[in-house]
């Protein structure tokens, strides 16, 4: 079996790096970590890097990616803020019973989900969004 150590980055295709920067840095508030080695911009969430690239710049066809869920403190407030900046949403904000989700796209059409889990993890449940390390930490905190 191969050993996958971690996710080094999630690729985000764009047609225009400035447009990607506007969405991820100016609207989502991510930190840009682009180094001189990088041909395209990189943006940091607290757990994984978004690696922007331009398929058309390397002779490939552009098509948007399908969906990343970013955690925001309040889905409705975040939605209002993005809508005011011209971001298009699809449908109403969904309440799954454990989390809120609102579906939109960045300016290249990549699927973005504004996400906030409000329920505690359930033993039988879906939508568990906590790494084992964090879960262990939380349980240790609750037990002490």
């Amino acid at each position, binding site marked *: 079996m191969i050993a*996958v150590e*971690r996710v*080094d980055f*999630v690729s985000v295709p764009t047609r225009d790096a400035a447009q990607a920067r506007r969405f991820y840095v100016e609207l989502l508030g991510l930190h840009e970590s682009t*180094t001189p080695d990088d041909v395209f911009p990189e943006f940091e969430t*607290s757990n994984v890097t978004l690696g922007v690239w331009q398929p058309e710049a390397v002779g490939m066809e552009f*098509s948007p990616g*399908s969906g990343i869920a970013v955690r925001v403190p309040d889905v409705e407030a*975040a939605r209002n803020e993005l809508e005011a900046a011209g971001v298009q949403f699809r449908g109403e904000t969904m309440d799954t019973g454990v989390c809120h989700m609102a579906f939109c796209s960045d300016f290249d059409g990549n699927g973005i989900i504004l996400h906030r889990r409000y329920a505690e993890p359930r033993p039988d449940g*879906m939508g568990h969004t906590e790494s084992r390390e964090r879960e262990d930490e939380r349980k240790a905190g609750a037990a002490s």
Partner: protein
Amino acid sequence: MQAERLDFVAVPSRDAAALRAFYVDVLGLRPDDNANYEVWIGDTCLGIWEPERVGLEFEPQRNGPLALRVSDVAEARVELEEKGVEFQGETLDTGVCHMAVFRDPDGNDLLLHRRYKPYE
């Protein structure tokens, strides 16, 4: 606004159980203890979903692959090829890293990745 973290990457599928088996049994990813169709790589969660179950068209994810860090891209590629995984073209040497693009059974793009150039 401040996005706090990436909670999950949505992975479209036509057969979530089969795709989960690929991620767990072939790629060796950790299944979530509490959710059937979520798997973990370190601190990153993949959420498998079936668009057709909610009335949406299925389209595999292209151009948005996760870069999976392995110790040696060439070795991992051989191991996956022996298990029938198909790669797209040759392994790329960017000057700072090796990358090999392959697809999961639903046709979603993934990357084997290893940076070899030290960070300055």
